């Protein structure tokens, strides 16, 4: 097998921990959630481990919280938070989510351009289409996925044009002539499309990276089509090695078919490693975390996620197959769990959903987990991973202080930051 370079590693920033209800651990910092100190500490821990970036998801409504899902993806609004973390860190990349469904491209282009300039080129934008939240934005129901993705494609086209609307050398700061920016090096974009009419140019200088890193997740056909066209990093859900290899191969072909270099798009499956110095220590941590899972809120998560009624079922029952009806609005995640639910009890499904949400989770020593990650990486099932901290700070620290050094010792992960921007460090296209 030909040798590969090193993995790209990022961390999913969930202040409550990735496993639902993990905040109930006595050492959690649940009292501080919402404040700056604890996420600054999380990000600094990731920076000490030389991770490429930390990543904030987002959502446009409070339904997960109301349903008892306390992963807390919405507590930290990404633009505000990335700004604060830019001040607290020096090298690590900062990736935040902004929806193309409920924002305007001029606003998003400005916010991410400023973040990129203030951070010295360390910013990434996770481009999402919202599948909930309509009623907070004056809509009765969500647009169809196809329509959302058409809007997303045009949205990114506009933000790219806006970021390109200032030449690299537009700022001349010519005191003698009294000319700060050369107007000839700042151009209108005059975009007119199906969803947006934007004259431009941006009123913010070209971002430090030219364009902030573009991240995308979504394994539907529309999602893959968008990601392979515009994204530098793809977050993906993969639970099976062979299927992940096939997905990887197909995806890179799609990228090349669009005239891009396959290596310029990094595929990063999520994984939640529950790490201990010994197998027994790891298992104890896993058991402890499992004990925090609330069955009542787990039931609500199943109902919401799977769109089924389960009031009449015991945790030892299986969900009757006829209650789970596929359709065009179902997400990939729904199908993954439909398949899982066909073969497992409701209780097992609750634990699985609390832990995995479509991603893998593993319990083991640093060596055992590292070997598995390396098998995936060397087998070209991925270019690295998005690490889900099982709990914070306990599970996160074990992941960063035991597993990541193991990968470094084996030569699979960087020991120092190199390059000056996130794009350079990730090995994706430069602008």
């Amino acid at each position, binding site marked *: 097998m030909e040798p590969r370079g090193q993995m790209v590693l990022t961390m999913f920033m969930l202040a409550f921990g990735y496993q639902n209800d993990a905040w109930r651990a006595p050492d*959690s910092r*649940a009292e501080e959630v919402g404040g700056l100190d604890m996420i600054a500490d999380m990000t600094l821990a990731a920076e000490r481990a030389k991770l490429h970036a930390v990543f904030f998801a987002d959502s*446009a409504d409070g339904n997960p919280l109301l349903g008892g899902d306390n992963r807390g993806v919405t507590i930290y609004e990404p633009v*505000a938070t990335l700004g604060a973390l*830019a001040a607290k860190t020096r090298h690590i990349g900062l990736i935040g989510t902004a929806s193309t469904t409920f924002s305007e491209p001029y606003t998003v282009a400005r*916010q991410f351009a400023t973040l990129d300039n203030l*951070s010295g080129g360390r910013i990434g934008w996770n481009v999402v289409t919202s599948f909930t939240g309509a009623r907070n934005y004056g809509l009765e129901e969500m647009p169809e996925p196809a329509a959302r993705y058409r809007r997303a494609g045009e949205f990114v086209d506009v933000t790219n044009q806006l970021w390109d609307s200032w030449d690299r050398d537009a700022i001349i700061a010519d005191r003698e002539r*009294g000319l700060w920016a050369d107007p000839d090096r700042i151009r209108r974009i005059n975009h007119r499309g199906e969803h947006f009419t934007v004259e431009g140019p941006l009123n913010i200088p070209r971002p430090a990276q030219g364009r902030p890193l573009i991240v995308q997740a979504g394994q539907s056909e529309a999602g893959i089509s968008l990601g392979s066209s515009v994204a530098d990093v793809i977050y993906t859900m993969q639970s099976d090695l062979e299927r992940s290899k096939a997905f990887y191969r197909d995806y890179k072909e799609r990228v090349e078919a669009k005239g891009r270099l396959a290596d310029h798009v990094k595929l990063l499956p999520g994984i939640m490693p529950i790490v201990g110095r010994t197998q027994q220590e790891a298992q104890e941590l896993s058991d402890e975390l499992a004990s925090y899972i609330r069955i009542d809120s787990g039931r609500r998560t199943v109902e919401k996620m799977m769109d089924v009624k389960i009031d009449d079922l015991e945790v030892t029952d299986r969900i009757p197959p006829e209650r789970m009806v596929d359709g065009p609005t179902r997400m990939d995640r729904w199908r993954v769990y439909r398949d899982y639910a066909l073969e497992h009890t409701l209780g097992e499904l609750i634990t699985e959903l609390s832990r995995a949400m479509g991603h893998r989770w593993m319990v083991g020593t640093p060596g055992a987990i590292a070997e598995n990650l390396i098998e995936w990486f060397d087998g070209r099932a991925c270019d690295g991973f998005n690490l889900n901290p099982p709990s914070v700070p306990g599970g996160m620290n074990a992941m960063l202080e035991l597993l990541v050094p193991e990968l470094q010792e084996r030569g699979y992960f960087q020991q120092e930051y190199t390059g000056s921007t996130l794009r350079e460090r990730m090995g994706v296209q430069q602008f």
Partner: protein
Amino acid sequence: MSSRPEKMILTMFMLTSGFQIDSWRAPGSRSEELARLPLMRDMAQAAEAAKLHAVFFGDSVDVVTIRDNNIRNTGLYEPISSIGALIGYTKNIGLVGSLSTSFTEPYNAARQFAGLDLLSDGRVGWNIVTSLFGGFQNYGLDAMPDPKDRYRKATEFVKVVTELWDSWTDDTILNDRASGQWADVEKIHDINHAGEFFKVAGALNMPRPPQGHPVLFQAGQSDPGVKLGGETADVIYTAQSNREEAENFTRRVRDSAAQAGRPRDAVKILPGVVPIVAATRAEAEEMSRELACYIDMEAGRRRYENASGVDTSGLELDDLIPAERFEGSRGNSSRWAIMRRMAVDEKMTLRELIIGFARSGGHRILVGSVEEVADEMITWFEAGISDGFNLDPPSVPEGMHAMLDLLVPHLQERGYFQTEYSGGTLRESMGLERPASR
């Protein structure tokens, strides 16, 4: 109850290229660094060292002024992300940013300001603007909506945002490890707003901000602007260069607050001032002359014409503008009336008007020794015309440092300004009440 503070409230307008147009041409300016972090960080930290209550970012959403080579207030620092970064570089100072109600959704605005307030432990303010000067072309519109519509929309926007901030009670978060209840979801309320411009179900997906509501700033001098301010604002920024007009404005705002059922002094009024100060009057005048010589008079004449609607063709720089030239010019704003008064009643020459416009934008210019400038500010403050001031740094860094390192300490020595931070939220430090939880 809120009451007039014994000491002034002072904030600083974050104009990274200096308040006077073209002042960045000074040899010591840091214009190469505009839009970058170190310049903005150093300014905020200098303001914090001077114990100012807050720094304030204006904003715009188009490039028109940059194209005209006017980089005074161009939106080079997008406020939400910039304030986010400054939270990480400061400890006590308030951080205020403008966000237009014309081009964004209230749910997004509520989230971004709630996020900033949470991250800063309650140091954030939102300056509510309606995008008077443009931006429509970047948001799919053919023209700016009519001012009345913009203000109606702004009023509804602010109502939705504050309801969203209130959608969680202060005691929603239980953090009960034993039961596994982090939040008492019964205390998270949908707002179910359905109005003329917005339909928002709620609730917000974030906890109530530490200040309840981030401090609400507003700066409109038209009748709808004063009404919105009196009804909703905590702090009003205003352009006042004439004492009598400033008194009238203050009365209008206090009346408007009273009509809205609030205490007359519920709203803090902070006129903008441009202090060009030095140890002696002679030095200040020298600095003023030097700054004036950076103004591009040709561009200045064009900008003055654009702002006033007055044709100055055929006039020499030392001429007066004949009064009839103001007739028929489109005077839709209170600033136009000020411009007319200066030209016609105060008989300023075209050159003086261009310099005045480049340097003040309707704000009061105070050139003099530290004592003289402080006296002028104290006179207005003592007369109840203002609750403090928004300080416009005439140039950066030189003019800003004179202002922060000479003028502010002098006000402190005379007992008119705080010498330490109180340690509370921005709302507390400004003497504003915290809105009660539902």
